[in-house]
């Protein structure tokens, strides 16, 4: 088990390195950041001065090394646009995003797993058909459309919930559901199909032969076995939620990291963009490692091999 974890961590480190290269390269091909903050009247000397000040006159590999050295010491650089350390900006905005994502994740889990399991148990019933339609809608409607429609129904027409902004639980309901809906649909379908496979196995037959009540067969014998596939997806969506919040935060004016990155991209603030993309990448990798460890807990065959 220990070896297993160490191996996963090493693989994670390698991935972080590769991603840092890609992120760096992408932010440099995206255009000259100076063009965004300086206007035509800026003098040539002024441009050169800024270029030097931010190290943009150095060859690319030197720039990368400088960037990595700072990154390792926790210095994410200073934003062109806001003229403040990026780390400070992120620390300010991240909690709101995590709050929203966690809420969306809870909504997803609470809705998707039970509906998926029940759809499999009551296969081809009206419940299953209803669930199928709910899922198709969620899979085909883009997040921003769901967000706008929800906002129109519950905030504009019914007036039950606020349209936008950050506050208590009431403010989280709409963006949380809009963010989670796509994943509810996906996890529901995955859970259903994986449950159907498990319900058909010999060990479930043996459990029935033992005379075990059906609810116990479903939740004890099947659910844990059926969990492997949706679990992979469930952990990945935590990361997708954080990155996906970019759109939803913009629609619902939620002051999180999504808004920050949009503004940074628009103003070609490549230092900020780089830092946030790196952060997203680290989240992805971290979550993947945690998932692998959870697997090993759920399925003893992984633990021992």
């Amino acid at each position: 088990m220990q070896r297993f974890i160490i191996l996963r961590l090493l693989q994670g480190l390698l991935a972080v390195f590769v991603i840092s290269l890609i992120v760096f390269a992408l932010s440099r091909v995206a255009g000259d950041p100076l063009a965004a903050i300086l206007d035509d009247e800026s003098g040539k000397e002024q441009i050169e001065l800024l270029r030097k000040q931010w190290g943009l006159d150095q060859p690319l590999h030197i720039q990368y090394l400088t960037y990595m050295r700072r990154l390792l010491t926790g210095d994410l650089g200073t934003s062109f646009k806001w003229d403040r350390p990026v780390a400070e900006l992120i620390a300010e905005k991240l909690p709101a995003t995590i709050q929203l994502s966690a809420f969306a994740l809870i909504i997803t889990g609470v809705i998707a797993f039970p509906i998926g399991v029940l759809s499999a148990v009551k296969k081809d019933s009206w419940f299953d058909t209803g669930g199928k339609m709910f899922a198709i809608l969620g899979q085909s409607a883009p997040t921003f459309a769901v967000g706008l429609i929800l906002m129109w129904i519950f905030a504009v027409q019914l007036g039950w919930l606020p349209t936008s902004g950050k506050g208590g639980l009431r403010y989280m309901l709409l963006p949380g559901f809009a963010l989670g809906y796509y994943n509810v649909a996906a996890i529901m379908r995955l859970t259903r199909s994986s449950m159907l496979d498990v319900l058909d196995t010999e060990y479930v037959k043996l459990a029935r032969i033992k005379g075990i009540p059906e609810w116990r067969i479903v939740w004890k014998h099947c659910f844990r076995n059926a969990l492997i596939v949706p679990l992979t997806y469930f952990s990945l969506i935590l990361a997708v939620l954080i990155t996906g919040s970019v759109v939803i935060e913009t629609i619902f004016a939620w002051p999180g990291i999504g808004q920050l990155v949009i503004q940074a991209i628009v103003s070609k603030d490549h230092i900020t963009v780089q830092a946030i993309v790196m952060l997203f990448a680290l989240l992805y990798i971290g979550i993947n490692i945690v998932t692998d460890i959870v697997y090993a807990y759920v399925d003893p065959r992984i633990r021992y091999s």
Partner: protein
Amino acid sequence: MTTTVQQTDSAVETNDEVILAVNDLRTYIFTRAATVKAVDGISFSLRKGETLGIVGESGCGKTMTALSLLRLVPRPAGRIVTGEIVLNGEDILQKSEDEMRDVRGRQISMILQDPQTSLNPVFTIGNQLREALGIAHKENKRSMLGRAVDALRSVNVAAPERRLDDYPHQMSGGMKQRVVGAIAMSCEPGVIIADEPTTALDVTIQLQYLRLLKEIQANTGLGIIFITHDFGVVARMCDRVAVMYAGRIIEQGEVRDIFNAPAHPYTQALINSVPKLEQRVGRLYQIDGQPPLLSNLPEGCRFAPRCAYASDQCLESYPQSYHMKDGHYADCWALDPAWQGTPIAEFIAPTGRTG
């Protein structure tokens, strides 16, 4: 050979010792395309401490018969259409699903074919055993542990205390099958169905397992229904045998009688296709053709299309059940006194093991 015409029902004996009596059981599977008559009117009985073999080719309805006895026919497509299954004096087809849960495991249980897939991979075998026990006995954890250890010991698992914490994938196939047996027998059912329990095991382990079942039976008076396609295993294990073909029992009786004087041409052919050590043969006997589709059964005798002695009568209508002696029945027109075709005595000579 006396051949008295009797009704199929009389295959069910009314004896105090009888713990299971099945009467005209029909289990159909309804698909959009057709109705599959997996079990189509079978009757048999099982006494205390007796082993009844159910023999037949793949797809003749053996496993569906077993699942019907537990009322575990895959739903919603499969359904027991008619019949009676009298277990310990009660017709279980009249019971509700809740009542059935008390029957399963405690009155009738089953050992599945493949030990590799019969145990849940994510729980320890101790957990799975205790669960089976826990349904029947509401006791404290400690005495349950003792019972689980006893259950493992009863199937000859070495060092059972240490085995309780093992996961199925840490055990060999033979060991797993013994654990499955322990689970099936943990609540001391009167009847156990063994559905080809040894096909997935290698030959030496097979023999061990069969001996173990016999031993447990001698100690507990368990009634065993042994489902197999292997007449060799039948000879070793069973007291009586029922031969199934295309959803029906076409012959049943004492193993000795069936081996020495098989009445149905299909039974004769089956026995002939068992390899014999004392006989040198170039090529094993095989029955030409294939069993009919259970979704498209012929009108008359179901074996007639493959039978060398079939007459027009055989193709037109299904034969009655004829009683030879001591509960030896067979469904074949050639047993009828009015039979015009090849006399049954001239069918393939009975080739039971000598003695």
